[in-house]
């Protein structure tokens, strides 16, 4: 099996997932409504700067959107038996996981941009480096899609997958500097925030919103997110391999 063959099959799996799972209700309820509701709840206090709120909101939309589609797609496939069809196909487990992650990765930028443009216009916030922001959105989407696959690999039905997803999503939503700056949190929570991928996603977006040039911090954030993605993908493939035994 060549890498090219594996990649092309991963692409076909992603395209199929987009066709099948994009319009499922959880993608809308969890992917858009939940983060927007959280945003509105916290923005009324008026204590956070627009750039902080926008980076937090966009990161949340990506987190919820990309993770939700993965939780739905993998678990539904397990329930309907179609996942077995993918497992029987001549594609490596890592290729299969990549295909699944690509579908979640693709929905992230769509929802993020749908939210980013009106919110920026409404709040009068200018995006100083749109390319950096777009890159940060894409890398974050892939990380959260990989996390979604990782958690859903353990689940047997949809509510269980959503429970596992929330176990990761909600602590991240509140401890990664989304609505409360990390610097203002107690020391141990600041340390904890360092192991949460959302922290790096928010930071990278903020760098792109605030700086017209690419900073070292921005590149560091992308590097950490990429490491998280690789870790989640390898762990997901390992979980699937163990399940085959």
């Amino acid at each position, binding site marked *: 099996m060549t890498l090219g063959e594996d990649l092309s099959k991963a692409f076909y*799996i992603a395209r*199929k997932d987009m066709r099948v799972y994009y319009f499922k209700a959880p993608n809308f309820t969890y992917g858009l409504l939940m983060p927007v509701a959280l945003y509105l709840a916290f923005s009324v206090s008026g204590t956070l700067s627009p750039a902080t709120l926008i980076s937090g909101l966009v990161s949340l939309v990506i987190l919820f959107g990309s993770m939700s589609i993965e939780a739905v797609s993998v678990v539904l496939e397990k329930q*309907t038996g179609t996942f077995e069809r993918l497992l*029987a196909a*001549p594609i490596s487990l890592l290729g299969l996981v990549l295909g699944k992650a690509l579908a979640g990765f693709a929905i992230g930028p769509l929802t993020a941009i749908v939210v980013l443009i009106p919110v920026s216009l409404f709040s009068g916030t200018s995006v100083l480096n749109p390319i950096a922001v777009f890159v940060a959105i894409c890398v974050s989407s892939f990380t959260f899609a990989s996390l979604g696959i990782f958690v859903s690999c353990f689940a047997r039905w949809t509510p269980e997958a959503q429970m596992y997803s929330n176990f990761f999503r909600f602590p991240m939503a509140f401890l990664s500097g989304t609505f409360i700056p990390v610097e203002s949190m107690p020391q141990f929570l600041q340390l904890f925030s360092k192991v949460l991928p959302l922290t790096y996603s928010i930071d990278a977006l903020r760098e792109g919103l605030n700086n017209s040039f690419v900073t070292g911090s921005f590149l560091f954030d992308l590097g950490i997110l990429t490491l998280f993605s690789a870790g989640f993908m390898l762990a997901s493939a390992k979980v699937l391999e163990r399940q085959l035994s």
Partner: protein
Amino acid sequence: MTIATPAIIATDLHKKYGTLNALERVSFTVDNGSIFGLLGPNGAGKTTTIKILTGLTKSSSGSAIILGHDIIRDTIQAKKRIGVVPESSNIYEEMTAEQNLIFAAELYAVSGQKRRKRAWELLETFGLAERGRDLVAGFSRGMKRRLTIACGIIHEPDVLFLDEPTTGLDVQSALVLREQVRKLNKEGTTVLLTTHYLEEADQLCDTVAMINKGKIVALDSPEKLKASVIGSNIVDVIFSEPVDEEELCRSCGMIEAHRLGDKLRLTVGSDVDVVGELTDYARARGLRISTINTLKPSLEDAFLRITGLNPEEAGRDKEPARMRRQDG
């Protein structure tokens, strides 16, 4: 002279689920171009065997070689050459029949030009062409089953695994499917199928392995397995009143008796004058014999004799229409 490599070599396959031994030392070889049947009641280990051979689960020990490729060490190469049709339909209901087939072709790297052509050929073959652009969600169970099978063969596999292919299908669909299996085999595809329809195995298979409680209990051609029960006679009899099977066996020197609806199926040694014995038995008890019918041994008889199961344990009660036998 060249010796053809067997399509499948299963050696000492063992599978444990917790403390349960789902498979124990299962070994068999499937010749290239043949149809091989795995026969057994529900829970015997048929599906587990298929899952191991197709790389969907790993055996606890033993090895499986598919067309020269070890399914554990050389998984992708082995999977490229096999088609898998599972027991339950596994197609995407949110996609059309055509999209399902094309996606299956893409997973097996069927070339771009050939995908659509092959998809429509199969839709025609399985009588689904008129619904090819409809979402699968609106299909009947039989249509979904046919589409699942079409997805399993779109890449023209060298070895096809069919797990209970006709379970739940109407008679017409089952006939179409069996015809397709024969056609594929004629074109060179090796087929391994599991079934608990003994008649189906009898009609299709060159070789049959009977599996019960995770162990292979017999492995031979259907004809040889049937011949193994020759030496005894099978007789169906209906008395005017119900009789006690055990007492009948004792009185008439019969090997065994099973009640099948209103009749008794008797297995009798070939040296027994069965008609005389039954007539004497009926007369002594003031009974009338309504019907008496001698039968040729079937694969079902061989299966019951070899496994020691009664017809209910073997799943006969579930599909009586499919378990017909030839009257002699």
